[in-house]
């Protein structure tokens, strides 16, 4: 019998044939199974494809050169086919990233690209383009004692709550230097990428929370912070465009599910665009601006 590990992450009970130390251990009958094995070479009836993925209705195949292939189907199963001798942190990095993103979309959930912080009794998601500072501001709030629910992918479930992901934030070395974390024993996400896995066990909130705000971070090439509340079509498009791996949605033929959850969610939340200077990254001032203008 194959050894099995059971975890809970993003509101799902996950049974895996290999250990995933990033996730929190749990017991119960699984919603999702992760196995090692062979994956299809090609999908049939491809509806969308990218450079490294193919999507069909309820099927998704991702290939990361020299690391692994991931086959996700029906929102219930992920098969990992790795070229490595063991499932190491690199294999898990893309599993917990793009492969999980496809899994959530197959289940009709809304994965937003960004990190979630608990303010009061509700959740606020920080989203925006890659490199805009989503994880940095979340890590800063954590360093000031706030609790986080998720980093990089924040999943909104059908009850319009953000479900906790796993107690970890990925932070680049330059930001890490500015924060008051214990830097010893931190591991790089990959040998040649100076981004670190920072465990946040003490500041991890492990219950679903109603989503109150989505903050889209933007940058500008002039000093000072600005904010604007988005409404109407701008509000809709902002969330659509910041859906994690939005191009998968079409491939998985999940446009209707995606549209429905957005329509249900939008009247219940506020969406802001907050613009910060490109540089320097003034986390303290940025956090204060958010606290004073949005999280009042």
């Amino acid at each position, binding site marked *: 019998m194959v050894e099995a590990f059971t975890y809970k992450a993003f509101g799902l009970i996950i049974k895996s044939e290999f250990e995933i130390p990033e996730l929190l251990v749990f017991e119960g009958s699984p919603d999702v199974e992760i196995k090692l094995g062979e994956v299809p070479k090609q999908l049939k009836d491809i509806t969308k494809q*990218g*450079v*490294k993925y193919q999507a069909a209705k309820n099927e998704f195949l991702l*290939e990361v050169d020299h690391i692994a292939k991931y086959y996700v189907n029906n929102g219930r199963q992920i098969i990992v086919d790795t070229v490595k001798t063991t499932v190491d942190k690199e294999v898990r*990095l893309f599993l917990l990233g793009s492969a999980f993103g496809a899994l959530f979309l197959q289940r009709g959930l809304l994965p937003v690209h960004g990190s979630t912080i608990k303010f009061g009794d509700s959740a606020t998601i920080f989203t925006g383009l890659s490199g805009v500072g989503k994880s940095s501001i979340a890590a800063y709030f954590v360093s000031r004692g706030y609790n986080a629910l998720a980093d990089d992918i924040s999943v909104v479930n059908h009850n319009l709550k953000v479900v906790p992901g796993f107690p970890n934030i990925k932070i680049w070395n330059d930001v890490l230097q500015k924060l008051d974390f214990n830097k010893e024993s931190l591991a790089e996400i990959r040998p040649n990428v100076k981004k670190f896995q920072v465990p946040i066990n003490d500041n991890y909130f492990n219950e679903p929370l109603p989503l109150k705000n989505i903050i889209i971070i933007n940058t500008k*090439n002039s000093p000072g912070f600005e904010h604007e509340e988005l409404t109407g079509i701008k509000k809709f498009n902002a969330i659509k465009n910041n859906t994690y791996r939005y191009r998968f949605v079409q491939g998985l033929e999940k446009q209707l599910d995606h549209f429905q959850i957005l329509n249900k969610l939008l009247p219940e939340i506020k969406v802001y665009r907050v613009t910060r200077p490109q540089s320097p990254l003034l986390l303290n001032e940025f956090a204060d601006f958010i606290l004073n203008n949005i999280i009042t």
Partner: protein
Amino acid sequence: MSIAKKEQIKNIIWLASYPKSGNTWFRVFLTNLLSDSDVPSNINDLTETSISSSRKIFDEYTGLSSSDLTFEEIDRMRPDVYRMQSLESEELLFKKVHDKFYYVDDNQVLFPDEISKGVIYFIRNPLDVLVSFAYHSARPTEKMISVLNNPEYAFCDKNDKLQNQLRQILGSWSDHVKSWTKQTMIPVHIIRYEDMVNNTFESFSKAVKFIGIEKTEAQIKDAIGKSDFSVLSAQEKEDGFKEKMIKSKSFFRKGKIGDWQNHLDEKMKNEIITNHKDVMMKYGYLDDHNPVF
């Protein structure tokens, strides 16, 4: 996994240059030329010409986060990102490039020839490039000399922080020019910035002809008028320009030919000339040992 075999067509025009050589001016012109509007296009909305080092486009097309990948891994995937964009487009695509032209591995170049209709390469007197680039980066001119001379020079090449664009290897000014103008895989049309300023209509018309789009003399003149330096500079004063670096005061500074004479001493001038003599001679920037412009 290989990209589906719909027939690849040559529909990308690369707008390539070392920085501060007229690329953005041409992009504004092109945006105006391709637009039906009576008023000049907004400099903050140059959607007709996307930037080839965009992290967002890379992430969308690969299905991966570039921030989880090494520079080398990203480089090896970039050609496929362009192939896929080419495949998905029925129309001509214009892509701005500051990278030099190079091989990402033994078998492939960064910009695949089978999807490339051509490259317009913008070149400008490196003495003026130096002054403009220093202003743009808010760095002392003396320091920028080593940038123009540096064969390893690259944008966004720090591996301990996340930068807003993908890494772009430029090499030295001469490396950059030679990489694009000596390659024979993609048809290249070279435009000198000085000709864009001095013989605007002729220079822009030749580029339009090279691109292969049908436009009348009146349409070209109209687009030139709408992308005049004064228009761009006024727009920037009014609303800013998002491609400006945060430390510099403005993107559209002077655009003058020979402005280096107001900023460079003899030693600085000679450092550039000594390092880039051959290329400067070839493109008419040096007459024996004296700058032409």
